[in-house]
């Protein structure tokens, strides 16, 4: 009797093992699509259109927006701000890709920028920062956050690049001057007290490049100086990747971080294309991974042990998959035309990010508004950067 039971268990387990070996390598085939489904060379991909429809709805349907904002701000006030930034940058690209969409994009961008500036004016920069941002403990006074200044500058520059709006010209000039003066005086700028982020510097410098293109100014020396500083002090020796954060004296606070480096590499495209390519290739080597045909990204390279934090999102043990890094890897793969990795990441989105499509709108339940805005940006990026290409 016992022999019969063991025999049955043996056959049953063997059948499960063989079935797993047959099925697991095939699962991705049901979710795999060509990279062109995610982003197209011209126009806006169907996925981009559906993501944009959902994002724009959140700016017209106040109840839905309220729910979404409450959810995000409950975890991180930065996401409220970054959700605005990525959406504005994405809308600029959509407007540049599809002239028919331009009026709607301009309208939405103006609303978002106006409300963001109003909130910053009325509640201060800390409204968009995490709780430990106390203005009186910033090393450089009066306290400013490059996170806020850089992203607002890029929003303003993106809006003006899509179509000139004279009222925004002094606002951009003021923001850029503030960043440029700070970088000239201190080499680096804080986002949080004694905490500087490579991500925020890259965004701010890209905004500066766009501003130069719009207004004929020239900040190339400041940009070159910062890049030289970054190559000298912010490169992690083990991987050659830029570290994610550092103190005001340039001491690294962390190693290279997936939720930072993919966008940094993208911003470097308009600052130093060769360095951008180098950083992307290194990030691809150190952070990109594939399991059974599904693409994902690690938050930290194998040579650096860092914790899961608010930027990485929860990290899936063993597989080392970070939601934050994987989402931003879409931006990197799209920016560098890495269709193979992009298709694998897009397959993971459909498999494990729980898409929800209704009435032509698309959202990913595993994500949130800022995550979806990042994905939208990845589907349309390109035309805005083309306007800011490095002049030989």
């Amino acid at each position: 009797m016992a022999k019969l039971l063991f025999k049955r268990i043996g056959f049953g387990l063997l059948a499960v093992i063989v079935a797993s070996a047959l099925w697991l390598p095939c699962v991705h085939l049901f979710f795999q699509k060509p990279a062109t489904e995610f982003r197209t060379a011209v126009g806006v991909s169907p996925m981009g259109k559906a993501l944009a429809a959902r994002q724009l709805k959140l700016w017209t349907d106040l109840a839905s927006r309220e729910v979404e904002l409450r959810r995000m701000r409950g975890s991180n006030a930065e996401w409220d701000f970054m959700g605005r930034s990525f959406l504005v940058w994405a809308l600029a690209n959509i407007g540049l890709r599809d002239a028919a969409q331009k009026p709607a994009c301009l309208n939405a961008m103006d609303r978002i920028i106006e409300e963001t500036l109003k909130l910053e004016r009325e509640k201060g920069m800390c409204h968009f920062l995490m709780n430990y941002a106390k203005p009186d403990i910033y090393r450089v006074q009066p306290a400013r956050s490059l996170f806020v200044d850089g992203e607002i500058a890029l929003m303003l520059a993106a809006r003006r690049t899509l179509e000139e709006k004279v009222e925004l010209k002094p606002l951009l000039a003021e923001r850029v001057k503030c960043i440029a003066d700070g970088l000239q005086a201190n080499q680096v700028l804080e986002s949080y007290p004694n905490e500087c982020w490579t991500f925020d510097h890259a965004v701010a410098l890209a905004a500066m490049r766009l501003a130069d293109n719009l207004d004929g100014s020239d900040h190339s020396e400041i940009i070159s100086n910062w890049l030289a500083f970054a190559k000298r002090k912010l490169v992690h020796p083990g991987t050659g990747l830029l570290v994610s954060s550092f103190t005001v004296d340039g001491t690294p606070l962390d190693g290279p971080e997936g939720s930072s480096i993919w966008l940094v590499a993208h911003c470097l495209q308009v600052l130093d294309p060769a360095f951008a390519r180098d950083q992307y290739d290194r990030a691809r080597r150190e952070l990109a991974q594939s399991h059974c045909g599904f693409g994902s990204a690690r938050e930290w390279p194998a040579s650096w042990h860092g914790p899961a934090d608010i930027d990485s999102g929860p990290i899936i043990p063993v597989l080392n998959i970070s939601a934050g890094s994987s989402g931003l890897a879409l931006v990197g793969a799209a920016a560098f035309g890495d269709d193979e990795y992009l298709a694998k990441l897009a397959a993971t989105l459909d498999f494990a990010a729980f898409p929800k499509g209704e009435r032509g709108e698309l959202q990913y339940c595993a994500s949130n508004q800022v995550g979806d805005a990042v994905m939208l940006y990845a589907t349309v990026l390109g035309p805005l950067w083309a306007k800011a290409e490095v002049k030989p």
Partner: protein
Amino acid sequence: MKETSSKFGRLIGADFLSPKDFVRHAVLILVLFAVAHLCGLREFTTIISGTMASPALGAGTCALLGMGYMALYFGAVVFVPILLIAAGLLALWEKVRAASRRPLP
């Protein structure tokens, strides 16, 4: 109806690790997943991004509901086909074995 009930009964009372047992578990996972989906638990998977679907419910409950939905979803998408393939393989094996034991005419 009687025949259907009887088939269902045979499925419920299937032997451990038999083809029917695998099918029974596959059906159970699919039913539970369908219930979770219809209850709107998909929204709670936002916990992956570190966001609470409903701050009023609290982080613990949101995480529990989100993880529960994910377990059922991955069970339905990954494990159910494995169970069904395993059931097919076992049934095929039993058929081959029975045929080899049958005396030649």
